[in-house]
C-alpha cells in the first residue's frame, strides 16, 4: 500500500526523490484521518523550505492541519490541481495529488526519514 520508493515522516508526509528533485505529498493514512479535504495552502515556487518546518496546510471540513517539509530545499513546482480540486487529496494522495516538488539542498536528510515498511510499522504502533 505504501510505495517502497517513498520516504515518510512521523507527521505523515512522504517524499520520493529522483535526480535531486523530491516530490512531496501526504500519506494515505493522513488523508483518511483528515476526512473530506476542502482546501490546500501551499508555498510559491522559489520558496525555501527547511526540513521539519511548516510547508503549508491542508484543511478538511472540520479542521486545519499543518504540513511539514520532509526535506530542505527550494520549491520548483506546485501542484496546480489542488487549488481547484483539493478533494483529489482524498482520492490519490500518493499519485496525482502530490503537493510540491523540491530541489533538495541536503540530500542526506532522506536518511532521517522512515522507509515504507517502517512507516507501516509506525502506523500500527501509533
Amino acid at each position, binding site marked *: 500500500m505504501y510505495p517502497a520508493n517513498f520516504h515518510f515522516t512521523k507527521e505523515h508526509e512522504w517524499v520520493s526523490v529522483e535526480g535531486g528533485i523530491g516530490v512531496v505529498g501526504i500519506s494515505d493514512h493522513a488523508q483518511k484521518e483528515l*476526512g*473530506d479535504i*476542502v*482546501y490546500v495552502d501551499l508555498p510559491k515556487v522559489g520558496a525555501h523550505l527547511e526540513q521539519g518546518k511548516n510547508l503549508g*496546510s491542508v484543511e*478538511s*471540513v*472540520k479542521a*486545519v492541519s499543518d504540513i511539514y517539509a520532509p526535506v530542505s530545499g527550494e520549491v520548483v513546482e506546485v501542484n496546480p490541481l489542488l*487549488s481547484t480540486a483539493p478533494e483529489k487529496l482524498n482520492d490519490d494522495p500518493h499519485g496525482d495529488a502530490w503537493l510540491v516538488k523540491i530541489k533538495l539542498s541536503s540530500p542526506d536528510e532522506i536518511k532521517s526519514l522512515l522507509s515504507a515498511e517502517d512507516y507501516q510499522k509506525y502506523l500500527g504502533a501509533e
Partner: protein
Amino acid sequence: MTQPAPGLKATPLNAAHRKLGARMVDFGGWDMPVQYSGILEEHHAVRNSVGLFDVSHMGEIEIHGPDAFALIDSVTTNAVAKLNIGQAHYSGLLYEHGGFVDDILVHKVADDHYFICVNASNQEKDFEHIAKANKLNATVDFASDRYAQLAIQGPKGLATLQKLTATDLAPIQYYHFADGLVSGTPARIARTGYTGEDGFEIYIAPSEADRIWYEILDAGAEFGIKPCGLGARNTLRLESKMALYGHEIHASITPYEADLGWIVKLDKGDFTGKAALASQKQQGVTRKLAGFQMTGRGIGRDGYEVYVDGAPAGWVSSGGPSPTLGKNIGLCYLPSGKAKPGQQIQIMIRNQPVEAVTVPTPFYKRAK
C-alpha cells in the same frame, strides 16, 4: 475498540456508533461520533434525503406544578403564554446582565408541565439556574437520564419515521410535537431540528435507543439514509444560521447582539435579564452577529480575527465550508455599524488578511 473513551460520558448508542465505524471525539466531555462515512456525504444526505443523528447527549429538564408556567416564563425570554399544548419554541435562559446561560427549546406538554431540551455541556448549570429561581409552587426535575434523543432530519425524514409509528406525522406542524409510540415504545415526537431541514426529534427511553436506532436505519434504507455525526450537524446548522452555544452565544453575549431579538418578548411579564435587555434595546447594541462569505482564498474559522479598514474589529464565531453552497462561509461579530450585508472585511488566516464580505443570512433556506 468497543468501549467508550475513558473519562468521557457516553450515550446509549456508543456501541452502535463504534460498530458503524464512526470516528469518535471528545465533545464537551461526551464521547460522540463526529462522522461515519464522511461529513460531506452525511451533510448532503440530510439536505437531499434523510440522515439520523444521536443527540442523546442533550439534556432534558421537566417543570411540573401549578406554577410551572410562572416559573418557566420568569427565567426565559420568549413568551411562554403564547405556547399551545403540543407546541414548542426556541428561547433564551439568561443571567441578570442579559448574557446567555443557554439557548433552549421549551415544549408545553400540559398547563402544568413543560419539557425543556438544553445543551449537553450546560445541563447541570441550567438545572441549578432554574431551580434557584424556583420560589414558586413548581418542581424542577433533572430528567436527562430518562431520555435518549434521536434526530431524523431531511426531506425523507417524515416518510422514514412514519413507518415506525401510528401517530400521523404530517399534521404535526413545525415546532409542534405529539406523544405517541415509535416502534412500540413511548416517544415524544417533535417536528424540530438543528439542520434547517424538515425533520423530527424523538425523545425515548435510553433502554430502547439501540433497537430504535437500527429500526430507523432500516426504515430509511430505501431513501439512502445515513447515520450522521456532529461534523455534519455543525455544517448544516451553520448554513441555516442556527446559534451554537460557546460560539455565537455565551455568558457575555446578549440575544440582541446575537441577532436573536425575535426570541425576546419585552412586552411579557418580568424575566431574568429583562431590565438589561430593555436598556440595551433602548441604547442600541455596539456589536452584532453578521454572516460572511470568503471572497479571497481561504477558510475563516472559529476564533479567527476580523479586520475592517485595516484595524481589528471582531472575531469569527463559527466558520467553515458550506457543502450545499460550495462556498466558504461563517458568522462573525462586528461593530454594529459594520454588520450590514455588503461590508468588506478581512479575516486573519495564519497572519494573512484574506478578503471576505458580509452577506444576508441564513445562507441556506429550504424550499417550503
